[in-house]
């Protein structure tokens, strides 16, 4: 709920009632489900998802982005350019004395389809392609990490209750009271400092890990709150009582009885969180505290492009539009996944 770039999973966890509709499907007289009796919930979800045209299209777009990210070296080889070479500096005819492309529209040409980056004169297309890797790796890693933290603490709070619940609840309260943007910025150098001593050479993974850790730090509370609510209600349910009576250990109850009931909200929430992490990562880079050169990064490209607005909007257009399409596809996918799991909400 911060500005869209800010804190990670947006705060819709604070909305009352959003948890309840995940559980009470069974009791409603939903005629739509009648056709599927006998199918597993996973199959049901899959069949519902396949019927959602928007969902399938957005999934294809997302898959396209993922494929491009994975195949980046191959694409770059076929296209004949890479994101490391400073084309504009090797061929002085490409850039002006102050580093702007000499050609119109940001230097777009048959050689450089999306133009050249001002300054170093790298190829914009390959920067974009490799930039997807950065975004995806960090967003996926952050989603995984926040999910693990959120699941662990959410279940601990909800199932164990008492002091654990109180403690975790207060930690969440405090973290949610932090002005998230300034804290993301302020923790970046600290995390970087903790990971690598001042006199060591920064390894290549450092920015990835640092950004992931920082985003995860303030990104797990939403999921934890939701899962806490659900585990709290599950705890009172008969089958848990039954398991307790039969002498199952708390670990066994958590893993065998509670966790399987949480897969739906976990999967839905993580799919919705992923695009938020993509934008948060780009936001950090936009502010100049994210992933640094030479790793290609969209947020940094957008920030660079914004510097040349009056001169040429091309530098902003490509990364900006790519970002919007990417996030839009992810948001649509997230919505579709949620609908597939939980048709009642209806879009």
């Amino acid at each position, binding site marked *: 709920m911060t500005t869209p770039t800010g804190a990670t999973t947006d705060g819709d966890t604070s909305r009352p009632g959003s948890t309840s509709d995940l559980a009470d499907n069974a009791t409603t007289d939903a005629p739509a489900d009648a056709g599927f009796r006998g199918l597993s919930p996973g199959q049901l979800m899959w069949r519902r998802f396949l019927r959602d045209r928007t969902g399938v299209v957005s999934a294809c777009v997302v898959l396209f982005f993922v494929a491009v990210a994975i195949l980046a070296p191959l694409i770059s080889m076929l296209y004949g350019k890479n994101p490391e070479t400073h084309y504009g500096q090797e061929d002085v005819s490409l850039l002006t004395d102050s580093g702007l492309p000499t050609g119109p529209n940001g230097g777009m040409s048959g050689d450089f389809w999306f133009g050249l980056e001002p300054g170093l004169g790298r190829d914009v297309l390959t920067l974009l392609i490799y930039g997807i890797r950065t975004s995806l790796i960090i967003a996926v890693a952050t989603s995984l990490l926040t999910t693990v933290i959120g699941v662990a603490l959410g279940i601990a709070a909800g199932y164990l209750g008492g002091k654990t619940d109180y403690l975790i609840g207060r930690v969440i309260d405090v973290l949610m009271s932090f002005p998230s943007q300034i804290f993301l910025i302020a923790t970046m150098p600290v995390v970087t400092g903790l990971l690598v001593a001042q006199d060591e050479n920064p390894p290549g993974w450092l920015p990835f890990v640092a950004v992931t850790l920082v985003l995860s730090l303030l990104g797990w509370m939403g999921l934890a709150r939701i899962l806490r609510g659900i585990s709290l209600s599950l705890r009172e349910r008969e089958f848990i009582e039954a398991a307790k009576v039969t002498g199952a250990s708390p670990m066994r109850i958590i893993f065998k009885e509670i966790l399987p009931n949480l897969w739906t909200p976990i999967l839905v929430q993580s799919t919705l969180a992923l695009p938020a992490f993509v934008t948060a990562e780009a936001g950090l880079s936009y502010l100049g505290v994210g992933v640094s050169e030479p790793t290609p990064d969209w947020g940094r490209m957008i920030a660079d492009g*914004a510097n040349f*607005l009056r001169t040429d909007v091309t530098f902003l257009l490509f990364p900006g539009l790519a970002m919007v399409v990417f996030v839009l596809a992810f948001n649509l996918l997230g919505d579709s996944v949620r609908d597939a799991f939980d048709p009642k909400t209806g879009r």
Partner: protein
Amino acid sequence: MLRFLVRRTLGALVILLIVSMVTYALFFAIPADPARLYCGKTCTPENLALIRHDMGFDHAWPVQYWNWLSTIFTGGTFNGVHCGAPCFGYSFDKKELVGGILLDRFPTTLSLTVGSAVVFLIFGIGTGMLAAHKQGKPADKIASGFSLLASSMQIYVAGPLALWALCYSTDLLALPTYVPITEDPLGWAGGLLVPWIVLSLIWTANYTRMTRSSMVEQLSEDYVRTARAKGMSGTSVFMRYAWRGAMGTIVTVFGIDLGVLLGGAIITETTFSLHGLGELAIHSFRDSDLSLLVGVTVVAATLIVFFNIIVDAAYALIDPRIRLA
């Protein structure tokens, strides 16, 4: 109600204590020597020591934190400037009292937030209700499609694009600046128009989506069906029942958003070069201006916590099931 307020205020104070303490701890975890920054070109070790002493950096951070905390109540004198209680410290970088700087910056953030909040609240809720009412019809599809697209835009994409489209390439609107409303109301509105448009666009989309989904959810509630079974008209069911139910969600989210926005939106203010609390926050961080950084952080956290309390109180008014205690 009184008990609720007292209890929550105490809780809020604890949170603010923790937030300010964490800020202090974070600041000192960053391997930078703020004294060096104020030492200038001829930084002799003696000068450095003097500066450290003046700024209070010659103590361990918990001691400094304690000093900061007690100064709030006792006041103090910094660099010859007296600072009466409640005193939030002195910025050595700007050579001014932190309280004064914050007061000076707050109107910018306030104008930015309130101006766009009015728009996005009205349009967001309006469009969302329309979409919920016309669920599945073309009007709903257009509104939902637009809001999905706009909510996938980021300030740092939409902002520069708007600057380009509205200011640089066409000169339609003025570049963003802040003029106090008391000095020049028209200039105030004109200077903030572009940021308002961008913020409103994105936030309207968010509120449209939220309003629509909570209205749809409410419309499927049993009591809405009951109301219809009683013969209530469609409008009355929509407004008196469904909207009443959706209001709680919207007020909650709006309150939380307002708290966060008023605390300063760094990316927005950076994008539009506005000097509000958000920009102050990032600059105080970059300038290692500890007292200012803590000041901004505490103000931002206070706003968040304050609006959380307001939201909870408002929620109790909206939903009689909630009891404040």
